[in-house]
């Protein structure tokens, strides 16, 4: 098992980078309509989700927790203009689930935007939303978010689990990058982003316990840090996490001294916004993997008789 300090440090360092580069979480109000105003909401939603996990797990040090709080406040007040940007996005694309998905973690952390709540409640009644054309894993995620929002999930999650790639437990040697991301997100949705490892049906947990080590080994050697980070999250969601030492050491070694985690191999070059767009996600994932793995490692320690 990996040294918990090494795992923890990855997350502390990632939060420092995210705070220092918070202006990278930016919307583009004047964007070409063909690109779409909602395109840039995704990073903000992911930031809020991960900060939510950090508060929930309660293993962050005071500095890390403070940075997460400041980042969230910045994202809500500055980037989203107190939620008004979400309403604006909703008015441009009324039936898009994106404003709802970005809003949910902020709502869970105590923020409120009544107009968006009304729009969500209306959309939730639409048959159009029940069949909104997305892949099975995203659909599972939308239903999970509806439940977390306090709505009845349409369709129910239980009806959707079996439609995902992972639930079929297919041949593990067919897993490529896009399949691997599908696997990780199915696990995120089934466990509420690591909150309820019991949400993984035993058959799926067994499948992952058997084959995840192979995928981790592979993407570690390929230096695909973004995907490796998500796979390390999946490991931390399993009944018996391996907290694989070689993988965590490789992951930590790929992290830059300022906390940035490159997506693939080494840091990209370019202007600050371009670099931010390429690096924010793996860095968020690093914070996410770190907090879950740290939490699981401490739980294991607590269980170990002294």
């Amino acid at each position, binding site marked *: 098992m990996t040294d918990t300090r090494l795992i923890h440090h990855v997350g502390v360092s990632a939060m420092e980078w995210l705070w220092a580069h918070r202006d990278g979480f930016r919307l583009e109000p004047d964007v070409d309509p063909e690109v779409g105003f909602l395109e840039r909401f995704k990073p903000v939603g992911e930031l809020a989700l991960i900060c939510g996990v950090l508060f929930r797990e309660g293993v962050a040090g005071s500095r890390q927790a403070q940075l997460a709080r400041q980042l969230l406040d910045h994202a809500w007040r500055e980037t989203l203009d107190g939620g008004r940007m979400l309403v604006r996005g909703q008015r441009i694309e009324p039936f898009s689930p994106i404003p709802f998905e970005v809003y949910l973690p902020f709502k869970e952390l105590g923020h409120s935007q009544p107009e968006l709540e009304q729009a969500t409640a209306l959309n939730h009644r639409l048959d159009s939303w029940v069949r909104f054309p997305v892949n099975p894993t995203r659909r599972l995620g939308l239903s999970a978010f509806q439940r977390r929002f306090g709505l009845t999930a349409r369709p129910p999650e239980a009806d959707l689990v079996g439609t995902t790639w992972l639930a079929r437990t297919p*041949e593990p040697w067919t897993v490529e990058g896009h399949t691997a991301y599908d696997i990780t997100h199915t696990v995120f949705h089934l466990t509420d982003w690591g909150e309820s490892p019991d949400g993984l049906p035993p058959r799926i947990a067994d499948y992952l316990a*058997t084959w995840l080590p*192979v995928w981790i080994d592979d993407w570690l050697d390929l230096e695909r840090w973004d995907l490796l980070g998500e796979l390390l999250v999946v490991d931390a969601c399993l009944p018996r996490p391996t907290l694989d030492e070689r993988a965590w050491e490789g992951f930590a070694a790929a992290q830059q001294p300022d906390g940035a985690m490159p997506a693939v191999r080494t840091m990209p070059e370019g202007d600050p916004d371009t670099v931010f767009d390429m690096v924010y996600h793996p860095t968020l994932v690093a914070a996410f993997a770190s907090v879950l793995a740290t939490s699981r490692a401490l739980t294991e320690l607590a269980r170990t008789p002294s």
Partner: protein
Amino acid sequence: MEQSSTSALLQGTVLDLASDVVSALRSGDHARAGGTLARDGAGGNIARAAVRVLGADTLLPTALLRVPPDPGRLAVFKDAVTAHPPRADAAPAVVWSHWAMARALRRLDEPLPGPLAGDGDTEPDAAWLEDAGWQSLTHQLAVLAPLALPGEECAVTRVARRRPVDVARGFVRAVRRRDWQQAAGAGRWLTLLDGVPDTLGLDTGLDFVRLMGGSDPRVALQLEAARLMPAGVLL
């Protein structure tokens, strides 16, 4: 220059020899496994080296299908076993490969000449495999695929039988890395092991390896062995 042409010659001889074995396994016809191998001079050196690369699998049609070995090939095989006993500092896989060749001869009741005559069937040590990570375990087992035979009982097969999930992981790793030879060798082992996870999809996996890498006769040899394995004659 001379060295590289020798190495190319050896490589070619290994492929020819593997092709012969594949043909024999597919047709069950020992005559087709009787491609000529030189026994003397420089050609003899190359032939013995090629036989040592394929190891006991050179005689696989005999082991699996009970077809009598071609006398010329058997003679070269015997030369290869006796002329190059492993050195004291040889890697475990080399020692085991040699042991498997000597074992193949003993199964044919062929008397072993020289220093091999007296060493009975003493097994080398397999401790190096016991604690190997699943990646290294699979790599080593693929190198020692000639030991993956129905009814084979030795320290290496015992380790493999204890670690079916690890070998299955290694198979997935080899397929993902497009290492068809290792994948085929690991697949051959898996056909012999109990406890391989159903979710592996071994049958289609082996077909995939054949599709992608089967044009290499060394890969095809392992796949043919895997195909014959469940119906293979117990040793």
